[in-house]
């Protein structure tokens, strides 16, 4: 399940829902990316997506991960628009039989979201807003899975 949202969301509520009634998956891994306070005021960052295209690209990444890591289920929630300090930017949930697959799939999905999903991110720091590109570490992290 892939969801983009302009509104704040509660990663814990998503996790509760994801775990409910699950008796075949032993392992649930998750990752939450929070907006750090970069000293730029009420908005920590702004996220731009391309509606439709962004969901489709994430869907393709997710489907490949589902097969590769034998996932039972997964959820990706990603904010768009203005995000305040402390708010969740992204949530990835993965369910698998065993923990290694759940962890690796979650790690992999985050690496791809960081540098291969169609989002553009403007960080608001003390010197004003600036567009952020993936870091060298983001690129080498993502390349681990190629």
């Amino acid at each position, binding site marked *: 399940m892939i969801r983009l949202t302009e509104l704040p969301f509660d990663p814990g509520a998503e996790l509760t829902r994801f775990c409910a009634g699950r008796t075949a998956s032993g392992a649930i891994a998750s990752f939450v990316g929070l907006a750090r306070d970069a000293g730029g005021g009420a908005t920590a960052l702004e*996220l*731009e997506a391309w509606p439709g295209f962004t969901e489709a690209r994430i869907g393709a990444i997710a489907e490949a991960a589902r097969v590769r890591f034998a996932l039972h289920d997964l959820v990706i929630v990603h904010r768009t628009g203005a995000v305040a300090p402390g708010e969740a930017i992204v949530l990835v949930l993965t369910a698998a039989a065993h923990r290694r697959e759940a962890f690796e799939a979650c790690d992999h999905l*985050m690496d791809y*979201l960081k540098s291969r*999903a*169609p989002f*553009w*991110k403007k960080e608001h720091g003390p010197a004003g807003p600036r*567009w952020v590109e993936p870091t060298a570490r983001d690129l080498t992290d993502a390349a681990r899975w190629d």
Partner: protein
Amino acid sequence: MARVLLFGPLSDLAGWRERTFAPAPATLSQLKAMIARADRALGAAIDAPGVRAAVDRELVAGDIGLADGAEVAFLPPMSGG
């Protein structure tokens, strides 16, 4: 004509997000040349390494023919999460 979409820093640079270019360019490289004639800085930015193009919502590599009315998006380096 071709409809052009810009994202992220490219639309900040150009001052617009969406614009049509006419007459219809026959190829992606012809469209890029039209954009560069209209705005030299933008022309250089869409040709920078790391900028991808999507034609009718499919990522493309290299040059490609454009149908009349094609939608062409220029996507600077992506950074989610």
